[in-house]
């Protein structure tokens, strides 16, 4: 399932055309991306939280060759499922 299928499904509920809903969904993605780029977490009730996390630099050593590599720090987006979603799937 992709954005077009979701927008077709939501167009009746919102009262907008599928194209408008599709553009709104793209805007929604942009808003969530902007929030996460500012290191803000986005909480969707009943679904989960998009949480950007910073991982510090680490040194990884290859046991076979003995070479050490310095891995730079990174920021990744983690998704944490809400309790409602977990209960729905796990039961």
């Amino acid at each position, binding site marked *: 399932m992709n954005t077009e299928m*979701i927008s077709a499904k939501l167009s009746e509920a*919102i009262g907008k055309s599928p194209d408008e809903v599709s553009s*709104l969904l793209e805007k929604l993605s942009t808003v969530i991306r902007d929030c996460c780029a500012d290191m803000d977490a986005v909480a969707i009730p009943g679904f989960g939280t998009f949480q950007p996390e910073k991982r510090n630099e680490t040194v990884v050593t290859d046991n076979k060759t003995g070479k050490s590599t310095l891995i730079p720090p990174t920021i990744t987006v983690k*998704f944490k499922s809400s309790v409602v979603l977990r209960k729905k799937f796990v039961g």
Partner: protein
Amino acid sequence: MNNKIPVKKLAEKLAAQSESDISVEKAEMLIKETFSAIIDKLACGESVTLNGLGTFSVSFNPNDPVTFTPDPEFAAEVNAPFSMFEAEELNDGVDVEQLQSLDIETGQNHIDDINECHPATTDAETDKDSSITLEENDNESAPNTQCPAEQLNNVENCNPTETQPEEMLQNVSGFSVEKHNTDSSKSQPESEPSSESYMSTTEEHADDSDITYIPEDEEEFVEYTIVKSRFGIGVLVGLLIGLVIGALAFIGYMIYFIN
């Protein structure tokens, strides 16, 4: 930064940024309906992809039943502050603790250097003249412990704008007497204070103090010469243009009367 954005605030942002006129309530309803539809599809075992955001899929992990894989563009945008870094292979014999201690030591040394060069000064200290401060420097028996910035401040305290250059030279030569005496008590015999002795002593400690005296006079002189030369060139050019215009007017006048 490090805030938790609730769905209402998200809806406000979406309503503000959307091109189509949509209310905050409608935007909030759109967000809730969207993720509700995603949950329905995930419950059917399908994976859902939102353009620009990422892919949601079902996993068998009971602690995290839904996994999210961000869109590559999204991941790059979030990691933009560290995107310039790359993994570096360390040389043999380099230890992690060694790296950390090196960073701490160099940073602390740097801070110590800054503190030495810029100590907290009081008004009483700034009122001292250059001879006193440099004499203190000699008493510490540590050559070149005073940083150039501090030496520059000491020289500026002489107020060169208020005193004439000759008086300044006398003040400085007075300093050289004290300086020379302190040096002579160690190894050299006494000699008369002169500008030469000042030059010889300042070469050891403060080369910048010489530089501060001379450029002020030089700058004034250079500015004056530049202005004078421009004025001369302008007069010559003006005269030439005036002559040409006068000649043309005279020729035109003659042609008019001949005809």
